[in-house]
């Protein structure tokens, strides 16, 4: 037993103070989260009704109308982004995990991480210069490309980590049976890692679902229904943005409702993704 001298007491007190201080930091960081969620629910829930999900936006300044086209547009854009981003991401991830030591692999990994931190508006500029400028008009396709490019690094890095978790013995068992390496990959390793890869894809999709900046001058937004990928298309975050900065009260209410729907969508995807991941861990 150490004698409880004054020096020891002082150290104990400092320890307690620092514990309390860091706990306070945590509380300070979590307060905005709760305030934001509270306001979302309080302001948004009242404006969510059937009309919101089934109607087109009303005329400027008039009450009523909904965001049906924006919700559908967001889904189209996310789908497009998935079609572009998922194959590249998964293949890249498989490459990184199969050749972990190569110099090229290191550079690619670093660049994928760097791309993950790229400002989303730069991705929008990129899609604008390669697609909108030559085509001379805004289009859903350009928006999908901007989002798809953003999706690649997330999918790639999670795929890499998950594929690496697949036990080496499974691979060896397959190779020992004389199955070629590509077939081992496609038929054995990928199915084993599928749950985790799906999680990675869903987390990535949830992340791009809320992106607004890259869509401003690619998908551009649209007040009507549009199923033509070469024409401008509406998106939920864009609609929230333009309603939020508009001067009409009714639009502000709808912006809150749209934001609530958006956050709910993202949370649902995230939680579902986590449950996939949990199942993966429970595999024998």
């Amino acid at each position, binding site marked *: 037993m*150490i004698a409880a001298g004054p020096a020891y007491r002082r150290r104990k007190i400092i320890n307690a103070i620092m*514990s309390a201080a860091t706990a306070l930091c*945590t509380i300070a960081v979590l307060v905005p989260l709760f305030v934001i969620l509270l306001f979302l629910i309080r302001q948004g829930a009242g404006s969510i009704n059937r009309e919101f999900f089934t109607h087109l936006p009303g005329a400027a300044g008039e009450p009523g109308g909904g965001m049906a086209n924006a919700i559908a547009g967001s889904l189209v854009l996310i789908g497009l982004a998935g079609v572009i981003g998922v194959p590249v991401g998964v293949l890249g991830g498989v490459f990184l995990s199969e050749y972990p030591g190569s110099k090229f692999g290191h550079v690619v990994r670093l660049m994928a991480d*760097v791309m993950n*931190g*790229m400002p989303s508006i*730069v991705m929008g500029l990129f899609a604008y210069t390669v697609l909108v400028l030559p085509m001379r008009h805004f289009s859903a396709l350009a928006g999908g490309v901007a989002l798809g490019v953003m999706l690649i690094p997330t999918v790639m890095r999670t795929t890499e980590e998950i594929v690496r978790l697949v036990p080496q013995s499974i691979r060896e068992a397959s190779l020992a049976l004389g199955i070629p390496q590509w077939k081992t990959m496609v038929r054995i390793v990928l199915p084993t890692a599928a749950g985790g890869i799906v999680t990675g894809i869903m987390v990535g999709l949830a992340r791009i679902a809320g*992106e607004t900046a890259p869509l401003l001058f690619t998908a551009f937004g649209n007040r009507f229904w549009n199923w033509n990928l070469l024409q401008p298309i509406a998106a939920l975050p864009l609609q929230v943005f333009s309603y939020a900065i508009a001067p009409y009260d009714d639009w502000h209410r709808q912006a809150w409702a749209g934001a609530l729907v958006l*956050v709910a969508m993202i*949370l649902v995807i995230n939680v579902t993704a986590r449950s996939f991941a949990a199942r993966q861990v429970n595999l024998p």
Partner: protein
Amino acid sequence: MVLLIIGAITISLTIAAWPAIEKFGLRFLVTSTWNPVSGRFGALPFVYGTLVSSGIALVLAVPLGLGVAIFLSELAPRWLRVPVGFLVELLAAIPSVVYGLWGIFVLIPWVRTSLTPPLQAALGFLPLFQGPPLGLGMLTAGLILAIMVVPFIVAVSTEVMRAVPQAQREAALSLGATKWETTRTAVIPYARSGIMGAIFLALARALGETMAVTMVIGNVPQIKASVLAPAYTISAVIANEFAEATENLYLAALVLVGLVLFVVTLGVNIVARLLVSRVAGGPALIRE
């Protein structure tokens, strides 16, 4: 493919910005006239706004974020770590446009009526806090950016602190150190470069953040000493003016500010990743 994309981004942006590069050269970054009508463009107010708002954000977010990271990885009771970590991650999952919406209708009025008056009463003699209480402006943008980048600081620094070998901690504890002393003497020095990396990563996020900032900073291209005055950032000017830029030179000037932003964040990100990988063994994936 990833390398290709980064290359393609650089090349396509450079080509699109070429008319402006040719016309203005380096003067673009140090002059402050932004006049689409007369075709004169200088990006200094945007660069200034971007740097200052990110600076405010980091000043607020770094101590808070490190506090949370230390709490989560070292001091908190075990049962608290997972749920609290999840909540902090949730903060990163909220889209920036939602932060912006909340900023416009909740944070701006709060800054105008509750934060500015006491701030001016206490520190009003400094030029930093003078001017009419608009609510919009640099300080509000910094606040909202701080909330948005905290999760990145927390996620990455928690990860690097967890990567510190357990033996390191046990050695300190066995010498009779308290938990805090262990953290200060054994964990933080070991994780230092990774924590620096986390800060750089947050900086890159803050520099490039667009929607929330556009919605609260006021969008006036001026350089004022006061943090209560409206300002403008690189990403905000692109977001606001791009769709209406019809002239070639105007468009090129906007792409050029975008290119500047791209190059700066690229640099900051690379530094960040190299710093993090020195601790964690391999570049860590930020989980969002």
